């Protein structure tokens, strides 16, 4: 249920108050300032996330935040300072009784999804734990603020002053529906739990709407009647209900703070066993693919993502991609299409009229934006060492050139005409093609490819380029890394082990038969009557068993274990094969049976060794970027028709927004 639905449900189910609920007016301002600050996070200068992936399916994420109190607005600062007094007042303390230097500001650091709420410790740079605002304290303030805002929105409506109008009645005449909404907000935000599903209380037959029913209905009607006024408000309420604000007390006398905290990472649902097993087997060749998604505020000046793993593993590839330009590119594609439409409709002959001028201005605006975007992507590609050639986006390149080179055309009267519409490349077909390319090649996604990877740690750095985004939205960050076993000793050891197992079986068979070729009538005869079966079995089980104990395979839960699933499976197969041979000997089976098990006990380990050996020689070639979901404009992505690989594990902390 989203915010407004929960509110409606609360209005339906809570008791109708007979007096206005206690809400503090100063608290309302503070609550709204907290919401505003936590949405904007304008005081966060740098965000560094450290992601450590050692075990399969879990990761540690520690976040470091550089906060500058200078960047808080005057209003936000005032509100956060007031919060200290508000908390004290509830317990009868006076602001004056506290020494001035002990003042602290309560500052929101992040919004965390409520569903995986867990105790979080925030440390300052000296390693001291910082005091945190409890959810209960914050939610009372937010509830008061949300009510004041709702009332403010409704009072600004044109019908608020109209006598006899429902809104006027609600705001100024009848009190209970208003109190009901206040109480519902308070209940919704301060209760520990939220409604998951709506429940309805059945009305009795033969009744009409009484006083209580009318109150509830008036409140609900106001909410639905003003729904178009409340679009943004509904989002805000959703934030307040679904998210949980991390608010800490910071020393006011220090401007710059560096804080760190650890938060759990949410892993998406487990896969079916068979699929999981198949993915594990495939992983040893292509690597362990981790994808990580998060949201950051667009005002953030700098974002770092540091990925690390166990010392025995290495990061073979890592890239970071954001949708910071997605909105711009979507708009650009749409604008190119409407330009094409107009270009078709307006013939070039009337190239002097006002209609031509309007089209010309739009054409130049749109194409210059396109040219700048192409330039930026080219610089990005160059930095990442991938290719962005004119072959993959031909129309975009042609139009960008037309907009940038500043070429003019000579008209019939030998006049110079700077008009872009007269440029030979400015055709409706090119415009449509460019719009298609932008969407198809995922041009809205930027790319940071991490090149300097030091063993088991990779660092990606991102910041917004291309000026301020007029919308200032949140930016979705998507990072993918591919982990590999760096020691290479695991598969190698397993190869040797398999060869050793094969050799033991082969040598034993040779000795039992008396010839290296254990087939034929004589051999079958010899294998059917083994004299000292006990010793053979001891030999068969002791030696491989001893070797197995020296093999030191990584635990299954770790990433290394995940990567080593295939070698491990091959080891187990080899042991099974040799155990089968031993069993055949032990039961004094017929010669043919022993012959077959001997063949398997030799052949299977040899095959396993071959498989592992083969893999070791292929694995050097890196996995192509397009296969791990990098934007399709980068490198050979435009031509790669294969589906991108699914990640082995996905961490998503974007909170479902």
């Amino acid at each position, binding site marked *: 249920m989203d915010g407004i639905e929960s509110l409606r449900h609360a209005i339906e189910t809570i008791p109708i108050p007979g007096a206005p609920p206690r809400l503090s*007016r100063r608290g*309302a301002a503070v609550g*709204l300032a907290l*919401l*505003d600050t936590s*949405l*904007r996070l*304008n005081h966060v200068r740098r965000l560094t996330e450290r992601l450590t992936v050692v075990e399969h399916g879990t990761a540690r994420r520690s976040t470091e935040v550089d906060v500058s109190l200078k960047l808080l*607005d*005057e*209003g936000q600062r*005032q*509100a956060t300072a007031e919060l200290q007094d508000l908390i004290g007042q509830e317990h009868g303390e006076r602001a004056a009784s506290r020494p001035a230097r002990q003042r602290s500001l309560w500052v929101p650091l992040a919004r965390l999804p409520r569903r995986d709420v867990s105790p979080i410790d925030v440390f300052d740079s000296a390693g001291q734990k910082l005091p945190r605002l409890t959810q209960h304290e914050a939610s009372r303030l937010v509830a008061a*603020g949300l009510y*004041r*805002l709702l*009332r*403010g929105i409704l*009072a*600004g409506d*044109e*019908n608020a*002053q*109209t*006598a006899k109008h429902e809104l*006027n009645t609600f705001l*100024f005449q009848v009190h209970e529906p208003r109190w009901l909404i206040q109480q519902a907000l308070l209940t919704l935000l301060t209760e520990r739990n939220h409604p998951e599903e709506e429940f309805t209380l059945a009305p009795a037959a033969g009744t009409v709407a009484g006083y209580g029913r009318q109150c509830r209905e008036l409140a609900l009607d106001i909410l639905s009647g003003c729904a178009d006024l409340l*679009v*943004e*408000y509904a989002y*805000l309420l959703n934030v307040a209900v679904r998210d949980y604000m991390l608010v800490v007390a910071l020393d006011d006398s220090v401007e710059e703070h560096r804080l760190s905290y650890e938060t759990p990472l949410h892993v998406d649902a487990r896969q079916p066993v068979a699929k999981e097993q198949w993915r594990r087997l495939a992983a040893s060749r292509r690597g362990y693919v981790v994808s990580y998604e998060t949201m950051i*505020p667009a005002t953030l000046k700098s974002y770092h993502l540091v990925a690390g793993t166990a010392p025995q593993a290495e990061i073979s590839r890592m890239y970071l991609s954001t949708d910071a330009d997605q*909105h711009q590119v*979507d*708009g650009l594609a*749409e*604008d190119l299409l*409407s*330009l094409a439409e*107009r270009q078709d409709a307006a013939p070039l002959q009337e190239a002097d009229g*006002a*209609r031509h*001028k*309007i*089209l010309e*201005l*739009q054409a*130049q*605006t*749109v194409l*210059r*934006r396109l040219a700048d975007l192409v330039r930026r992507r080219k610089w990005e590609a160059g930095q990442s060492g991938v290719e962005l050639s004119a072959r993959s986006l031909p129309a975009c390149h042609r139009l960008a050139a037309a907009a940038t080179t500043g070429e003019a055309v000579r008209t019939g009267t030998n006049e*110079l005409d*700077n008009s872009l519409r007269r440029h030979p490349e400015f055709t409706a077909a090119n415009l449509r093609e460019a719009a298609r390319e932008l969407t198809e090649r995922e041009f809205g996604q930027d790319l940071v490819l991490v090149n300097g990877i030091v063993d088991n740690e990779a660092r990606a750095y991102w910041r917004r380029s291309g000026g*301020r985004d*007029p*919308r*200032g*939205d*949140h930016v979705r960050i998507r990072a993918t890394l591919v982990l590999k076993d760096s020691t290479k000793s695991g598969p190698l050891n397993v190869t040797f082990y398999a060869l050793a197992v094969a050799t033991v079986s082969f040598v034993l068979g040779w000795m039992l038969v008396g010839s290296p070729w254990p087939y034929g009538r004589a051999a079958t005869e010899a294998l059917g009557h083994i004299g000292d079966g006990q010793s053979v079995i001891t030999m068969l089980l002791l030696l491989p068993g001893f070797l197995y104990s020296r093999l030191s395979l990584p635990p299954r839960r770790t990433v290394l274990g995940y990567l080593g699933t295939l070698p491990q499976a091959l080891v187990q197969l080899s042991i099974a094969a040799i155990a089968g041979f031993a069993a055949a000997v032990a039961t004094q089976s017929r010669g043919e049976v022993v012959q077959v098990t001997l063949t398997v006990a030799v052949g299977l380990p040899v095959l396993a060794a071959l498989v592992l050996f083969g893999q070791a020689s292929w694995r050097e070639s890196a996995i192509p970027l397009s296969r791990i979901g990098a934007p399709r404009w980068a490198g050979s992505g435009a031509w790669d028709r294969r589906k991108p690989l699914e990640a082995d594990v996905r961490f998503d902390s974007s909170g479902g927004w």
Partner: protein
Amino acid sequence: MSVRGQRISVRNVADLARAGFEIARQPVTKVDFEVHHAVARPGYLRELVTTDSESTVFLETLCSATNGAGVVIGTRTRKPLDGTEVVERVDGQQPAERPEQNAGGWVFHQTTSPNPTFIYESAQTFEGLIAIDPAAHEVYEWHGLAVRDLVREISDAASSLVDAPLLSLQCPAQLPTLVKTRNHDLRTRKEVAPPCASLAVRFSIALRDASAAARFDLADRFRELCEKHGFSFWLADTRPGHRQGNWFEVYHADGEFSPLYKGDLRSRQRIGTVLPVTFVGPARIGSTDAIVSFLQRYPQVGVVGCAATTLSDVAFVHLQLAIHGVAADRLNRILGKLLGESTTPARPHKLLRELFKRLGLPPDPDGPSPAAQDPTGDYQTFTGPAFAYRAHQMPDCMAVWVSWEIARQQRGLAAPLDCLYRALAQVAPRVSPETTGSAGDLATVEYLICRATEQSVVRGKAKLAVPKSVLRQFSSGGVELPASKLCASLEEAWKAHVDQSGVDGVGELTVAWRESWLGHWTYS
């Protein structure tokens, strides 16, 4: 509308929380404001903001002066201490405000509810400039009708075509700088400064969906209108790297006006009286349209100047009405009596209808019929006094654009404006050998806007009319133009005065004679 426009931006949500915070932190839930209607004489704004700076603080401000009358609007001017909530009348019949009189003008103090859902995004606007009669030196009756009809068209396009609010409206306005080249050769490029103000309407419409398609629709509508009436039309240059004050010419009129306005003999008369009227209420789509379409029902009433904007989520629409055949004295007498009655309603339609009735102006029976839904039902109207029309005080003026920033908790507009005037007096102590006054005594603020931005600062921009004869002092020596030299030395002097005054938090001072050069030092 496309999907793009419907995506909720987190910033808009944060802006809503911010607006709610502004409401919740005030002692009163409403926004208080002041409207001054005064005679436009040099230095009137300076006196206004500096003399009683102890009692009122002008932070977010709109100011405009033309035809001999000026308006100054300031929001949240009240000090927190004297905040008492005005008792609300639930029946919505708020009486019209009785003005306070001060030197040469009327002052109105009132409060109104803001509309916190009105989210203003400056980056996505459709800006245009339509010149009605740029060559005119005096304002004629037909100009008033043309401006009125044009404002109606603009507000109608905004509300009906793109369902968006009108963010600002200004008349008269400065036309774009003329750029001339010979034979398309870059080396022959010349710039000619346009007159300080011309009879033109400059407007900006908020776009929820900033797509090219929406811009085409709007531009086409205005193009048709301009071609029909013979008005020149410019669009704000939207190409990357262009700013406010960069214009792109779409249609150039050759001086042939449509017979609609020129047919009547009466309409060729010069106007005699201007009546300032300011409408204030919660910002919402279609309010300007409702007001102007009401005025269209009175064929004797023209609009000869306008200034409209939204400050603190409250819409302010200021119109200068020219009423045919009514002298200023008679108008003021009737107005004084009307406002003295306690039953006079404040609602725009009701107050104006009553005023026009007493003036003996019947509504045009063939005119547009009143709309069923009135978005200005809770607006307040502040009228008068009427002033005698005066053409430009200074026939030959150049425009000097200035911009500045002040921290929000400071004393507001007083310090930067006072320093600017002192700097003007210092830079040009004698405007010309014939007259005695300095530039500081003769310069008028023609347009000024101060707006609070996200980052707790208030940004201001103003256009000053300075007599052109000042330039003579700067004409000798150097490669730069005299106007640039004036601006550069004015900027230096202004900065020095601000430093000397010891006022904290004033910064980013720039002076330029081209609007698009603001925010940059003078010699680029």
